[in-house]
């Protein structure tokens, strides 16, 4: 299990390969990568604030829950903070399980919880100005399925 919160960019490919190389017994690996959407050039950048200390603790709790619930062989979460440009990767999740249903469910669970329960706040910096991203009702509602 690996949980990393960092300002630096991460290498999706290198992390995926390293993760898949050490999940003996797994039949399924799922990764999710969140990117800064480049809305036709109007979104210049994104700034991500977080709560050092609580962030790592909250994410580790979610990952432990997912590991148990879906008998995962391993799981990984990397999340960036600070200033990110359009198209850059914000975060990634990886899950490994014996079968695909468990790997998919655990990855979706982690994403739903990261969206609404990990202390990150996104601010969009566009050519029109800066604006805090509002939490979406559908993201909160997504938690009900777990």
């Amino acid at each position: 299990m690996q949980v990393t919160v960092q300002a630096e960019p991460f290498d999706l490919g290198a992390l995926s390969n390293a993760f898949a190389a050490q999940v003996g017994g797994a039949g399924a690996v799922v990764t999710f990568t969140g990117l800064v959407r480049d809305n036709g050039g109007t979104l210049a950048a994104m700034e991500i604030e977080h709560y050092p200390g609580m962030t790592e603790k909250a994410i580790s709790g979610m990952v432990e829950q997912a590991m148990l619930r879906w008998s995962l062989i391993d799981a990984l979460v990397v999340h960036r903070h600070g200033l990110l440009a359009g198209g850059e990767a914000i975060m990634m999740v990886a899950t490994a399980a014996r079968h695909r249903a468990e790997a998919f469910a655990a990855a979706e669970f982690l994403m739903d919880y990261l969206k609404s329960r990990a202390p990150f706040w996104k601010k969009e910096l566009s050519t029109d100005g800066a604006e805090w991203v509002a939490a979406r009702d559908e993201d909160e509602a997504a938690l009900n399925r777990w």
Partner: protein
Amino acid sequence: MIDVLYFAWVRERIGVPREKLDTQAATVMDLIAELKAREERYAWAFGDLASLRVALDQELSSFDAPLAGVREVAFFPPMTGG
């Protein structure tokens, strides 16, 4: 003395990311009422509780939770991670 932290637009409205407060407030609600009475910037930040979340010692909590023994309180908007 208690550490109080603010994030995102709550931090922007209050003007500081954290401060140490001397308070006798028994619950989070009491602390909010005390701050709102103190200065306009707090009243602005805490105007709509439905759009606020609170963490006590880095655990999400509720507004009626007691503050006894708590060392760190954090106020912030609903989270937008992932």
